[in-house]
């Protein structure tokens, strides 16, 4: 939980400028305060927002602890049983071979860019994806929080928790990609937040994968794993 000390606040409101989710307000006395319902505990105000040392952070209890875990890139909380908040995805695929020829990886990052999301909204997406047959990535911390992975459901106590963004990771056969994207198109008309979507595959499957997506949505850039990684036997 992040709080501002009234006795130390010099009312400059610098912290409000830095807050990515507009959770910092000004009181009648001029001092800043944090709306705890909106705060995602990303830590930006703690690191960059205050020159007078008025902002303090305490470890939040479960389930609020997920806010910092998914919102603050430097947090090392392990309440999910999986360190970090995502996996290496395509970045180490030349070593792990997680995505095999004929397969596609699908990442849906809810709340990004800069809007934030609740777990209730995350579940709106994961339920649709599960319905279309997407298998959620085992090593992703979000998957570990699901109470029913087959249906993409989270415990009710998590639903109101807000985070800056979370990554839903799934892998599926290439021929099933169109079905999952169709479900995402259906949910995007109803959801109150934004989500960034990416797909990845082996270079040799690239044309097949791109034939299955709406080209008008494609951003011009891509992330290319050049293939320099080598697996080594470790003790």
């Amino acid at each position: 939980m992040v709080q501002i000390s009234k006795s130390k606040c010099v009312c400059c409101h610098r912290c409000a400028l830095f807050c990515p989710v507009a959770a910092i307000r000004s009181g009648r006395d001029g001092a800043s305060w944090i709306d705890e319902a909106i705060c995602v505990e990303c830590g930006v105000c703690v690191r960059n927002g205050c020159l007078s040392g008025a902002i303090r952070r305490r470890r939040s209890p479960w389930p609020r602890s997920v806010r910092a875990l998914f919102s603050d890139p430097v947090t090392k909380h392990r309440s999910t049983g999986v360190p970090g908040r995502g996996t290496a995805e395509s970045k180490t695929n030349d070593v792990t071979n997680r995505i095999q020829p004929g397969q596609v990886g699908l990442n849906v990052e809810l709340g990004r860019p800069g809007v934030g999301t609740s777990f209730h909204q995350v579940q709106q997406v994961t339920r649709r994806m599960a319905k279309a047959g997407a298998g959620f990535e085992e090593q992703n911390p979000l998957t570990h929080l699901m109470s029913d992975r087959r249906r993409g459901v989270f415990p009710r106590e998590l639903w109101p928790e807000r985070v800056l963004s979370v990554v839903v990771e799934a892998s599926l056969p290439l021929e099933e990609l169109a079905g999952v994207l169709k479900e995402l198109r259906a949910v995007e008309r109803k959801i109150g937040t934004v989500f960034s979507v990416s797909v990845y595959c082996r270079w040799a499957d690239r044309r097949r994968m791109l034939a299955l997506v709406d080209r008008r949505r494609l951003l011009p850039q891509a992330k290319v794993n050049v293939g320099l990684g080598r697996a080594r036997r470790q003790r």
Partner: protein
Amino acid sequence: MSHTLHREGRRRDLRGEFIVMSMAAKGINDAGAGPKLRRFLRIARKHGAVSVSDVKSVMHAVFTDIGAVESVLRDLRRARLGLSVTVTGLVAPIHRACCRSEVAEEPHTVAHSLGVWGNRRRLPSETVLSVMTMCGHSLVSVPLVEQAVASVRAGVCSPRAAAVKLAEPCVCGIFNVDRAARLIARLARSGKRR
């Protein structure tokens, strides 16, 4: 997470932006990876990276020139570090750089962004979005970008100084100060707001 992949921007702006990243795979080749990652950073600096960073043993280097990326890939191939290397940017130049540096005729894996879906009315203007998505963790706020633009417009600071300030919250150091300065100057000239 694909935090370098979802950068918004026009094709002509993205022509001068390439992010090279290196990391080890946990439990497979991460033992003794420290010196190799440091070697990666030395190679990146040698070829003029505008920004380098190390977050949780994932190394990033930002380049503004594909020729430099090609040289980095050539040196990495010769160094035989065995770590995974990804390059984010326009696909065709990256593919050519892979071929010319003799890293591979065909890269291994490719990830494409399908952009932002959902309630897009909650997003700021295209140019503000181009600035804030340079921080892959979305830690650069819209008000901070707006204030930077206002400061430049008022003559309080230069676009570059404003861009350096904007880069402060970006903990993984992939915020491209050069490109941000150009975008801020454009916003300040146009007088556009959110």
